[in-house]
């Protein structure tokens, strides 16, 4: 119903910022395992489900992926499109669906604030967080906790070009 909102990624990134600030005062009600948790989950599911078809992975990276939920990719890729994208920009697995990453890329180009994060290297998912609230996980830094081996590995420096043209 509200999926059309995704065509306004710049508006959504502003909303994202606003939302993050406005959630702060509610922090005391946002506790992992707290009595309000089911309510928070229900609200998140409804809100983000309606707009983004959110899959409740519990570790939201929407602002790094052009405000497009990567968990809608049948392969659950977190680091960009696979090599199977069709010439019309549709998904290899679901030919009727536009590739999540093709959408994510073109949208991220319209996001002056977070668009550049499209290039960032996303860590393996924490599958234990499936179904939990990414808002709560964000407040308590649960979603950014990395496996020790991953966290201690240095990245190889490579030149990235941040800008690109619309495809």
């Amino acid at each position, binding site marked *: 119903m509200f999926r059309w909102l995704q065509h306004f990624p710049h508006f959504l990134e502003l909303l994202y910022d606003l939302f993050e600030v406005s959630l702060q005062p509610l922090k005391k009600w946002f506790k992992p395992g707290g009595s309000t948790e089911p309510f928070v989950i229900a609200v998140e599911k409804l809100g983000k489900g309606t707009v983004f078809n959110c899959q409740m992975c519990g570790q939201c990276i929407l602002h790094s992926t052009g405000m497009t939920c990567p968990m809608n990719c049948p392969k659950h890729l977190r680091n960009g499109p*696979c*090599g*199977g994208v069709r*010439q019309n920009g549709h998904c290899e697995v679901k030919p009727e669906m536009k590739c999540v990453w093709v959408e994510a*890329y073109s949208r991220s180009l319209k996001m002056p604030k977070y668009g550049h994060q499209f290039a960032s290297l996303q860590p*393996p998912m924490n599958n234990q967080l499936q179904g939990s609230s990414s808002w709560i996980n964000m407040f308590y830094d649960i979603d950014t906790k990395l*496996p020790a*081996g991953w966290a201690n590995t240095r990245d190889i420096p*490579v*030149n990235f070009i941040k800008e690109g043209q619309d495809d």
Partner: protein
Amino acid sequence: MTKEIKAPCSRLEEILRAGHFAVTAELNPPDSADPEDVYRAARVLAEICDGINAVDASGANCHISSVAMCALLTRAGYEPVYQVTCRDRNRIAIQGDMLGAAAMGVLNVLCLTGDDVTAGDQPEAKRVFDFDSIQLLRTARMMRDEGVFLSGRKITTPPCFFLGAAANPFAPPHDWRPQRLAKKIAAGAQFIQTQYCFDIPRLKEYMKRVTDLGLDKQAFILAGVGPLKSAGAAEFMRSKVPGVVIPDNIVDRLKKTPKERQQEEGKKICIELIQEIREIDGVAGIHIMAYRQEELVADIVKQARLLPRPIK
């Protein structure tokens, strides 16, 4: 690529570092428990290439596993490239298999996302994709360089991998493909094997951007090629195989050829493509993919004047 070569070093890595134009070829796994079926194909390929890719359940169809095939190949002194996909195994299985492969003498690993389960003949299977190809690459590099598993637990003797990744210059979003390559290199890719290259102008465009970014200096790029059996096969590949682009002029050329000579024409096209690709700046070698047609691959390498291979 200034990093010192660790011993033992893969032959493929040595050849690439020495500046030779490398040749790798795909060995599609047999549906058989007889090792001779693997060796029969390997014997042909080993003569004409520097690395034999052991495909991991090609096209999401079940065959002998790539890790087992690698074990057979190293045992007989061949140089395999162990293909790992994220489709069938979770992170625990993948890390264990990589370490096991290293123990059996595997030095080259190609990290792939993998075709979806729906591409194969058992589409009812559960898809895993616990990792994506980039996370897989970085994990393999972590095992090698940091000597730990993802959890941080120590590996007594870390593997010595020469790490590879795939690239598709022809799939949308085209503008972002060179940056995706950069991301793979940042994650740990040292060599790249691309999807089939039939569209030379587009490959040139892609390689221009790749060389502008200096990525050809940070990883060895091997362009993928393969012979087309017939006009029908070309039509099938471009409509059914994910990520393959074949321009009309190539399909038309095959269609104009009488049916009985189409295979020969397909081979000729492949040799011409190799010669054109060789001239492109930044290409370090070719990767030949031809489903269970080892003799044909040998013929192509010979006729493209890529013999003899540097080290045997």
